[in-house]
């Protein structure tokens, strides 16, 4: 009995150690693929109305049912990833680029520049990202582009702090000193010796931030700060579906379920990446 449990446990441990991360990655890749190929894959036009088929519950013809205008919910969900996923990817990559630059500049140059940049980052970091994003949209105005800017801006300090913490340890490495004594320029040292060594933790951080960005983007679209009403978008669909909770509760269920699966798959993928690329972070537990 004990041995059996042990074997089962070992299989479970193996599954968790490797396969959940892989499964997460595969599901996320599948969602990305569907989103990119949305116009080919979707069975119907996401905007096409059909007044003879309102509030239809899920069936073979409309697997996710139809909404108050008779539009196919499945087709809208398939198209609905575009605004959120493009905003999230753009935001995370921009934050990565800007934040890493800020962190490397501060950590490598040091002195007053470092102090000034890091104080600024601390102030930004002291505000929770969702709140900072809402406040930025508040000043910039409503729209998907501003949502992207807001999310990216709020994430800059995360990458800057991480990049700086790595740079200040790498600057003292022997191979950096060796390169410098051979007459290499600062830009050469940063590009050839420092950046490649800081990539693994940065990638891990980027995957964690991607999950946060997807959650934030869908929340901002939900409260109406992003896409226009009527746009096929996971957040907006949940918002508009809320009016149908008495007549057609299936309409808000599916887009929200897809957001959950997407964020969950990115989170599991990120946990796996972290365990493989950066075992040091794992001990911090969060």
């Amino acid at each position, binding site marked *: 009995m004990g041995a059996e449990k042990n074997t089962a446990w070992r299989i479970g441990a193996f599954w968790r150690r490797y396969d959940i991360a892989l499964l997460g990655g595969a599901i996320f890749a599948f969602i990305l693929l569907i989103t990119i190929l949305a116009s080919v894959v979707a069975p119907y036009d996401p905007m096409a109305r059909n007044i003879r088929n309102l509030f239809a519950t899920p069936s073979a013809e409309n697997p996710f049912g139809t909404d108050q205008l008779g539009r196919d919910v499945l087709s809208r969900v398939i198209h609905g990833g575009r605004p959120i996923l493009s905003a999230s990817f753009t935001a995370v990559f921009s934050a990565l680029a800007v934040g890493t630059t800020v962190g490397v500049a501060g950590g490598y140059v040091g002195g007053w520049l470092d102090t000034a940049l890091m104080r600024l980052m601390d102030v930004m970091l002291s505000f929770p990202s969702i709140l900072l994003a809402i406040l930025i949209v508040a000043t910039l105005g409503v729209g998907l582009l501003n949502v992207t800017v807001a999310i990216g801006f709020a994430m800059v300090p995360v990458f800057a702090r991480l990049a700086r913490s790595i740079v200040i340890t790498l600057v003292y490495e022997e191979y950096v000193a060796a390169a410098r004594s051979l007459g290499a320029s600062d830009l050469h040292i940063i590009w050839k010796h420092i950046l490649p060594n800081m990539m693994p933790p940065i990638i891990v951080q980027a995957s964690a931030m991607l999950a946060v960005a997807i959650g934030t983007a*869908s929340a901002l679209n939900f409260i109406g700060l992003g896409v226009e009403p009527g746009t096929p978008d996971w957040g907006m669909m949940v918002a508009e579906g809320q009016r149908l909770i008495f007549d057609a509760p299936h309409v808000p269920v599916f887009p929200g379920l897809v957001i959950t699966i997407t964020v969950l798959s990115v989170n599991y993928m990120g946990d796996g990446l972290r365990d493989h690329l950066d075992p040091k972070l794992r001990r911090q537990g969060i």
Partner: protein
Amino acid sequence: MISYLLKRLIWLPIVLWAVSSLTFLALRIVPGNPIQTVQNQVMDKSQLAQVEAVWGLNRPITEQYANFLSKLVRGDLGLAMSSGVPIRRMIFERMPPTIELAIVSLVISTGIGVLSGVASVTIRNRAIDYSVRTASILGLSLPLFWVGIMLIILFSVKLRWTPTSGRIGAGVDYDVITNFMFYDLIATGNWQAFGSYLRHLVLPSVTIGLTSAGFVARLTRSAMLEVMNSDYIRTARAKGLYERSVIWKHAMRNAMLPIITLQGLQFGAILGGAVITERVFSYPGMGAWLLDGILERDYSVVQGGIIFVALAYVLMNLLVDILYHVIDPRLRNPSF
């Protein structure tokens, strides 16, 4: 400790000045003012100019700023541009519901998070540990607004246990004293209204509490794992103390520090979450009010809302510092 707190309190007005000035500037850098945005369709150019003059929007920005600051130090946040209601009165109306929601959510998330985090470490059962870890990553992934709507569908539409929206039933009579209903309704002994109030509060606070409990559970788990392996825990066990006392009196006291830090930070996230939750439940708090202000580009409302959020956030961080000193005697005397 008192001198330390005083030092922190000196920072308070400086932070508020910085936040309000930044908001003031940012709102005006972006082209288009609220009058133009809202009234563009119904007014011609001369009428627009007249209304702008009433609000002082045609003055140079330095003069507007000086005017704004001199009013601010007197505690005057101006009038809402869309409704003409004083911002101060709106804050009295809208702040208490949000603070009540935030506190109850914080209690729920701390309760569930700490209990499940401790359980996953101390009950030596892998199934429990595994389910706590799965549940917490699920909690991190669930969109707050969707959880709210799913709870409404289940408890309000299907089971009819709770109302779908609002802060208290439409036909309920009650007296407003502080507008903190928790206090007002108990002070006036209005138990019927109190019941309606609680039924309205349960779903929004459970929504925020559940979705933020995942973070707390993860952090409690890792903090407890670290503490449980330390020498003084072995000593406490060697003395023959009950395991219950080892966990809650010895281990928890040290594990509390990172949890309190996180909850201080979570408070900000909860305020952000309140904007979304209040939208889902049509809950008449600061978040819903700020959101309306944003959508109407109402300068006064956005300024007032942001200054309030910053104030609440700074005060919460101060409270976290005080709690630190209460829990960790090492911090009370810096020379120690």
